[in-house]
């Protein structure tokens, strides 16, 4: 398990704690996994439950509570770089898949051999705390690493915890192109709705009525496209009839669909 917490105070890193156990506690008393010897910290202040690659933070009814990213919270699903504050102490949660030995390993489907159903048999819905507690108590609730059958790669080394340095070098993510293109609008030019603007805020905008005459405008990372879906007449762009293939739209293209003209343009 590569996730870890970095404890610091006043900007000085005090210690790093790899989240190596399913449940780790934070508190003032010595039996905690993460001991913070300060009177503002309760004896048992908080717990972190880690299930495979996900970690959950839970306040154990502490006197002074805790904050995550500046917001007071009782329980929280930790995300990479979350900052947990307990009094003057800060705990940074680091779970950076890009910094792993082989990020692809984490995306290969794997089979959990020992069913973890017993973890929370019919746990009361809506009460995550109860779920956590059952998880703790149930003797079979150990979805530990050894119960995973890793069918993806037999010889794959267990990902090592990142190097001791708190600065994880950024590793290039696999080609992810989720950035949306520039905002765009379609303005209706003719017919009863003339003048109306339609902002293309969704990945897919439908023009027309399903079952009768439909064209769609799709937003893709590299631009906007119009595609004929169904209906007798194909849409026209700048007076040219479209085939069955998607057609990329340029600024100020005029689309004509079932007699209605509209203009496509980029905003701003």
């Amino acid at each position, binding site marked *: 398990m590569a996730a870890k917490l970095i404890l610091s105070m006043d900007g000085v890193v005090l210690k790093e704690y790899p989240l190596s156990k399913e449940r780790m506690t934070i508190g003032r008393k010595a039996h905690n996994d993460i001991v913070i010897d300060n009177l503002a910290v309760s004896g048992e202040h908080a717990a972190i439950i880690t*299930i*495979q*690659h*996900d970690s*959950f933070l839970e306040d154990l009814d502490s006197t002074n509570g805790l904050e995550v990213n500046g917001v007071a919270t009782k329980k929280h*699903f930790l*995300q990479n770089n979350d900052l947990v504050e307990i009094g003057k102490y800060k705990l940074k949660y680091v*779970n950076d*898949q890009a910094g792993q030995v082989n990020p*692809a390993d*984490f*995306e*290969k*489907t*794997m*089979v*959990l*051999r020992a*069913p*973890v*159903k017993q*973890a*929370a048999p019919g*746990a*009361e*819905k*809506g009460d*995550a705390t*109860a*779920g*956590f507690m*059952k*998880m703790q108590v149930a003797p079979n609730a150990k*979805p530990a690493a050894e119960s*995973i*059958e890793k*069918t*993806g*790669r*037999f010889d794959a080394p267990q990902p090592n915890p990142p190097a001791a340095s708190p600065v994880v070098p950024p590793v290039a993510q*696999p*080609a*992810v*192109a*989720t950035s949306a293109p520039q905002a765009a609008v379609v303005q209706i030019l003719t017919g009863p709705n003339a003048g109306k603007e339609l902002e293309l805020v*969704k*990945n*897919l905008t*439908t023009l027309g009525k*399903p*079952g009768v005459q*439909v064209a*769609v405008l*799709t937003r*893709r*990372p590299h631009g906007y496209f119009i*595609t004929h*879906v*169904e*209906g007798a007449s194909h849409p026209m762009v700048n007076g040219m009839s479209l085939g069955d293939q998607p057609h990329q739209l340029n600024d100020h293209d005029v689309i004509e669909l079932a007699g209605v003209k509209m203009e496509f343009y980029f905003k701003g």
Partner: protein
Amino acid sequence: MKIEDALEIVSQTNPGMVRSHNEDSVAQELACGLVVLADGMGGYNAGEVASGIAVSVVATEVCQHLQDANPTDRDEASGEELGVMLLRDNIQRANASIFHAAQSQPQYAGMGTTIVAGLFYDNRVVVGHVGDSRMYRLRGEVLETITRDHSLLQEQIDGGMISIEDARVSKNKNLVTRAVGIDAEVVPEIHVHDALVGDIYLLCSDGLNDMVEDEDIQSTLYAMQGNLPLAAEQLIQMANDNGGRDNVSVMLVKVNGEFAVPRGWLEKLRHWFKK
């Protein structure tokens, strides 16, 4: 209406933007109303082998049985419909084949696959699945998941430990709790649903639903219901535009007419003449 005329089926599979090979397999048998999709796992090419065995065993065996039997026939001992039994038995048969291949050939050791299959007959669909490949249904404007993943994340959602919103950003998306071919036995989950005219059924590997939000799947299916091949292409394109980190396969089944099994001797006779 004969099932060939009542259903329209399209399927597409794509390796995605990152993986070099495709471990998904799909099969469709319109004449017996069957669609099967499997997402294999295992080293080298073992994933393809496992998913390939799964879809070919289920597709071939189910259709062969239905050549001279009616899916609505009931088993005398259990009272179960033949269609339901066939789907379950043959997923188990596929499990045994994969398991034995994995046991006997070292290069296939540990291979396995998910599976989702739909058998359409008598205005219904029998859905069988193992693992995290899904079946969705678009009815009217509403998209619903009609399978429940056999995954750690789904169990956490069911146990109330994690909300559906949080689950979207979970890093445990790839842990399945049930798979075909991993153990000597497997229990497929089988349910029967009514199929209505106008319904669209989507079978997909997790390469789709991990990359594309349900909302976008819904708007695509709804807008493109008149052009199924384009809808399938659009879904795969969206998964790839969002990164395409896994193989992505989609199968679409649209119900264009009723396909009740004829009942009563007169109807049966008419049906027989129509053949």
